[in-house]
């Protein structure tokens, strides 16, 4: 089992939900309205007057074999709308109840 933390511009919410339906991901944890800035350029998402954009984050835990297809889909979303921004990070799940 691996967890994927997806951080994306709020506008991409429908696409992220679509991805989850595509890969039959049911469980998720979402944190909305988070600030952030990318390391490789792009506009900061700070929710201020100057930078009004905001991010949402989605934490999903999936089987190991699902990780790569999910990342591929996310990559495609990122390519489609580069300016908005979407990033995903994968961790191992050690144990769970």
């Amino acid at each position, binding site marked *: 089992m691996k967890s994927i933390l997806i951080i994306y511009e709020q*506008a991409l919410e429908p696409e992220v939900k679509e991805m989850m339906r595509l890969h039959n991901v049911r469980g998720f944890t979402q944190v909305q309205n988070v600030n952030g800035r990318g390391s490789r350029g792009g506009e900061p998402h700070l929710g201020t007057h100057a930078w*009004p954009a905001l991010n949402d984050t989605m934490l999903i835990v999936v089987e190991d074999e699902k990780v790569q297809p999910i990342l591929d889909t996310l990559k495609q979303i990122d390519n489609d709308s580069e*300016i908005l921004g979407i990033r995903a990070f994968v961790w191992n799940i050690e144990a769970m109840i």
Partner: protein
Amino acid sequence: MKITETAVKNPVSTALIFIAIVIMGIFSLTKLPIDLYPNFDTNTLMVITTYPGASAEDIEANVTRPMEGVLNTVENLKTLTSQSRENTSVITLEFNWGENIDQVTNDVRDKLELIKMQLPAGSSNPIIFKFSTDMIPIIMISAQAKESLPGLYKILDNGIANQLARVGGVGAVSIMGAPEREILVYVDPNKMAAYNMTVEGISQNIAAANLNTPAGTINVGNNSYSLRVKGEFTEPKQLDSVIVGTVGNKNVFLKDIAQITDSLQEHIQKSFTNEVQGATIVIQKQSGANTVQIASKIKSMLPELQKGLPSDVKLNVIMDTSTNINNTIRSLEETVILAFVFVMLVVMFFLGRWRATVIIIVTIPVSLVSSFIFLFVTGGTLNIITLSGLTIAIGLVVDDAIVVLENITKHIERGSDPMSASAQGANEVSLAVVASTLTLIAVFLPFTMMSGMAGIMFKVLGWLVTIMITMSLVAAITLTPMMTSKLMKKDLKHSKFFDTVYGPIERGLNNLDKFYGRIVSWVTLHRGLTVVLGVLIFILSLMPMVTGKIGAEFTPASDNATIAATVELPIGVGNDVTCNLALKISKYIREKYKNEVQVVNFSTGLPSSDNTYALLRNSGDNLISFNVRLVSKSNRKISMFEIADNIRSYLNDIPDIKKVNVIAGGGMQAAGGQQTLNVEVYGYDFTETDTIAAKFAKEFKTIKGFKNITVSRSDYQPEYQVDFDREKLALNGLNLATASTFLRNRMSGSIASLYREDGDEYNIRVVNAPMYRTSIEDIENILIYNPMGQAVKIRDLGTVVQRFTPPTIERKSRQRLITVAGVASGAPLSDIVADAKKIVNATELPSDISIAYSGSYQDMQDSNNDMLMLGALILLLVFVVMASQFESLTYPFINMLTILFALSGAIIALWLTGHTFNMMSAIGIIMLMGIVVKNGIVLIDYINLNRERGMGVRHAVIRGGESRLRPVLMTSITAILGMLPLAISNGEGAEMWQPMAVVVVGGLTFSTILTLLFVPSLYTIFAGTGVKRNRRKLEKKYAKIN
């Protein structure tokens, strides 16, 4: 902003809410009555008291003065003026605007109760007359007649007045100039003396012979009948055989001593329309009724009514306020539509996308209909003020949407998807949009607090524009982003046609952006020079104002196609002579201005005392009052003012005429009449004040553009007075009251009884035959019977003398005054006032005479003070709004400087177009304060944004300028073009709004150009200094630690 996101996420409910608003607005629009002016409470009351037979001086002493004494104590009274003339006393009470007039009327009525007992016995009860816009006749119909003239009154009363009065909303229908039937009993005083009879006795006998008496009931068998004596005359002939006395066992019949004629009133006011005699039917409406509806109803009834009249009676509408309203409203509607089209073209030009254009244009109806809802709820009407409000707003309501949409488009073009671009794009500029809307509200909301005449004009305007721009703000941050998220496409594929048409425009606009970027780069580098240049331009632009190239007046005069004129012949001229001259003048006017004049109507002579409308106007046998109706403004080349000037000079050249007063506009307008200056000469002594007034009047004629100079007091009227000797009266057992009643009954007649026919009543008047009323001897020979039954001639009781008395005594603030009045035609009022003051100051005045100035001049000064106060208040509010939005004092200050350039532009525009500085241009300047700071706000807000995003000051300014150039140009050009139709309109009533529109167009154009140059350089100066100061502070702080 939360609201934007909610709107974007819930497109259905957003759309439906706005659709609901539009539907409610359209519903309200269909229910709104149309009128020329907003309904306002009058501030003027008139108290009219008639005292038949009294001269002006008697009226002044016995009626006016005691009443003034009491009425002067009414609360909130502003001015108290009075006119005492033959038979009538008219006291005018002017209150401060905004007083509850019903309350005031009650106060006045209470005071009048106090004084009633002290008024002379023969005087009528004082009538309180409330003058309001409703009193202005909405339609005047002339009825020309030839053979039917003697019976015209009855024909019109039954055939027309009754029917018209039944039309919903019609207040009063009065008939002027048609003589009423009267049964005249002309007695021969010599025969009366021979039979020892009096007019009073004869009157009593006639009354006793003309009676219906109920005599109770009678029971006959089982039935009960009522018993009655029907003794009333059934035809006037029966009067012949009335027995008026017995002499030597012989009956004396009325026919033996009198000649009985079934005739018309002796003194009547004659009325002519296009040189044919007839009557005038004056129709007034009820308060709050819809003028246009009533007028069209009445006009549709006329052909039907005409059928029921004798063939020689012709009806003709001579005055119809609804045509003026309709034309004015139509020209304003055209203006609104034109503004709409202009705005659409501008948006299309700049955005190049029809979907974007639709999104912007949608905000116009959404905002405008909100004003209809407001009007409907508050019971307002569609009038020139509210419609002008719409025209003013049309160019402003799109601004917010433009700024929002422009930013969203930019986001989409950069690659965001429409949904997030809409929410974010709207958010980015929301601060600027809210701030610029608030500044506009800061300008228009204080309008609602204005008082006085200006308050009436602009209160509703203030509310309407405030509501409309608030609505436009709401639409801009909800509806616009919602629509962009649905309608705008990420990848726009242009057709080939579009590329060929719009391609060059787009390239041009892009080049303009870059070009402006280079300019900003230059001005920010040479900021000192730029600022000096700006100051120079501002000072230069003030020159036309300082050198007096721009005149000042109160309100611009507007052409409503009506000219009123009163012509006065020397006192004592008979009515026939007056009539002939009037016919000649009427013919001349109609021939000279064949294509311009529609109808010439005039009336002359004294009206009967029961006609209130006629009582309000000056009338007499030597007076003619003309009413000239011109064809509507767009159908003629010569202006109303020019025609009025020509008629005036023609009348002045007729040697028989003593005094001429030609009023272009008819003098019945609430606003928009010609500008007047009244010089009031206060003083008790008639001769003294007359001399001074005459001198002023003569010298004022040399002032350029000061026309139609009249002196309010007319000539002394010759009159015969009977001076009774009180001792002789007492010796004969008589008192003054009895003696004067005898005189009055013989000369003016006594109403003996009423003759009834077909449900109408006519007076039976007993009076000396006309041939016994022609000389002083006839008066001296009148017999007065004392209680002992002895006859005494008036010659033995007193003397008949000829004296001269002023016909009308005018008073203001309980002092006699004489007014020298004139109108401005061809020169601004301010110049005329300056010249007039020079003349007055050069005149040496006796110590008991004082001078005051009034008329439009006084209104102008009052309104100037109001406007200054308002301007200062608005300036402060605008600053407060901007300072709180920017949370800074510096940036608002930079923005306020753009107002100075707006002032420059306004002055230059007024100078170039030759308009004057007046109430409307002052309003225009005040409006500019809110409109021009918008540009600065949009610009500075974006520069600040750039700096927050980490750019350096100059870079932020240049990039901000490049990016904001289009929205600034778009909002300014839509506002300018929205106002342009009003500025160049030639429709009816357009003169009034022109100065305002010219000021806004000029000021906005000028200030937009200069704002784009000076705001960047000023920003660089202030922000640069700020940055340096912060750096020094930092260095100092850490220098200490080290």
